[in-house]
């Protein structure tokens, strides 16, 4: 397929905020008006953390404000590049390429989108939820083993299958009428004690058959979590879409460095996570099928 011209923008983005959270996490707001104006949920940016590390790092877009031209990112410092990024100061600029990748397909209004995010895989789920028109039927399940880097509040909506102690949700979502619940093994107050895919499964099992059959699972997070989500999707026969990670060099389809194995019409292929993904249907991925 011929690539679409002029759909990715290289911007010198000013850092407007860099708020540190426990567990080496930080939320960064940058000014990147062209990315903000066109980004869709599931897409990411490829940014240069500092002059010292010119190879870029891919980071998902958590939220945009097209009017103010801002893009929010949630990052966990896990290595040298992300640690350099965490130390960047408000007012500094960095090169950002975006928005990149095939977004989640949220176009079917007859569907109920169930969003399952883990750790720094939560951002695309937040972007999806904010984007969906039918916010009332959308549910976000988020899991973390370190403190959630968001304001939390008790959710006002009841969810079938979800126990009475699992009350907390993400404030920014709840305020927009999107129901959310949290899971952790760290014993946090108001959270489901366990893994987030199990929480989502409890909910799905409590729906009546007609409601459940309209569900689509969208997920982003660590590999073991994606495996569990894919299992839930298979068990309940629900379409499941996963957002994947792989090392990247160019992030625009040039180097074939970022591949994942797919099986399409019986044929094995390596697809590029950057432009053929990062979102893939789980059934196409032998690792998750």
């Amino acid at each position, binding site marked *: 397929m011929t690539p679409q011209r002029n759909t990715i923008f290289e911007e010198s983005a000013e850092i407007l905020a860099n708020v540190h959270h426990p567990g080496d996490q930080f939320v960064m707001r940058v000014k990147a008006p062209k990315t903000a104006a066109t980004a869709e949920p599931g897409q990411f940016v490829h940014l240069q953390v500092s002059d010292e590390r010119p190879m870029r790092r891919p980071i998902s877009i958590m939220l945009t404000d097209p009017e103010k031209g801002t893009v929010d990112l949630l990052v966990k410092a896990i290595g040298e590049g992300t640690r350099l990024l965490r130390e960047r100061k408000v007012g500094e600029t960095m090169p950002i390429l975006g928005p990149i990748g095939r977004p989640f397909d949220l176009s079917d209004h007859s569907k109920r989108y169930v969003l399952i995010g883990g750790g720094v895989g939560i951002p695309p789920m937040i972007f999806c939820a904010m984007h969906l028109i039918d916010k009332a039927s959308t549910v976000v399940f988020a899991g973390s083993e370190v403190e959630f880097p968001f304001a939390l509040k008790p959710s006002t909506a009841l969810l079938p299958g979800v126990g009475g102690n699992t009350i907390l949700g993400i404030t920014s979502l709840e305020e927009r009428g999107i129901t959310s619940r949290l899971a952790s093994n760290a014993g946090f107050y108001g959270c489901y004690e366990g893994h987030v895919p199990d929480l989502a499964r409890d909910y799905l099992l409590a729906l009546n058959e007609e409601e459940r059959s309209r569900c689509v699972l969208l997920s982003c997070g660590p590999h073991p979590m994606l495996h569990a989500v894919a299992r839930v999707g298979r068990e309940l026969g629900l379409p499941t879409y996963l957002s994947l990670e792989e090392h990247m060099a160019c992030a625009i389809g040039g180097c074939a460095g*970022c591949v994942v194995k797919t099986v399409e019409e019986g044929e094995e*292929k390596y697809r590029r996570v950057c432009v053929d993904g990062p979102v893939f249907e789980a059934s196409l991925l032998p690792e998750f099928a």
Partner: protein
Amino acid sequence: MPKSDSPVPDLSVPFAGLTLQSPIVLLSGCVGFGEEYTRVEGFSNKDVGAVILKGTTLEPRMGNAPHRVYETPSGMLNAIGLQNPGTRYVIDNILPNLPHSETQFWANANGTSLEEYAEIAAIFDDSPVTAIEINISCPNVKEGGVHFGNDPVMAGKVVEAMRPMTKKPLITKLSPNNADIAETARHCIEAGTDGLSVINTLVGMAVDIESRKPIIGNISGGLSGPAIKPVALWKIHQTRAVAAKHNIPILGQGGITSGKDAIEFAITGSDAIGVGTGLFYDPLLCGKILEELRDYLSKHNMESYQELVGTLQS
């Protein structure tokens, strides 16, 4: 001082019988099958003299298992393993859709035997590519590739096998991993190559200290980027000693990430300059290199890029 009325320097260059609209060539394996970078606003095919397509083999290849790329100090390792849909597919399904009026597209041919190299040349001869780069220096496949490039006599034989199969210019890509690059260049020139690409990647590896496993799926990978720039300049210098005698042009490459780098490569003897990894740092690099080149040439009262090539002082 630049002359105030000095004309804009001419950046077009002759190369192996072709005229390139710009001395910058986008390198094989870094720009997919030609069109990927046009996704980026501000990128223009018109800024480059040629785009070299991903390494192509006779039959399709899936490529290596991930991880395929990894950042290393001042560069990166890659072991893609020549993922490509095969020569016939490229000709039937990719080349017809490329914007040949905006720039030239070159093939990058990879065989596992002399016969295969010859067949690929014959197939590309009847296609809109304007040149064929011969990759005898890919370090990431088990058969062929660098095994031809490491032996000067074998390298010459590859060129000899392809030469009668095509009228298109042949540009042989030399490996920095062999002992005597000038000797390899000589054999390739005698066998009829029209140009030389210098250099391909150096072989290297990286280790994960937690799992104690190699990070690259293929174990070893090709090192590119600024880390290899000094090696590239030295290999170009050595190759030029042979190539200049026969009027064979050099496409210099290896770690160019700025106009200053490009100027160093030109001075050392690059008739054209290749950019690969530099695009990963900055997808809009080509426009910036051209601007720096124009400024430099004007400042030094030169009328063209060509005037700068090989002006290394002793």
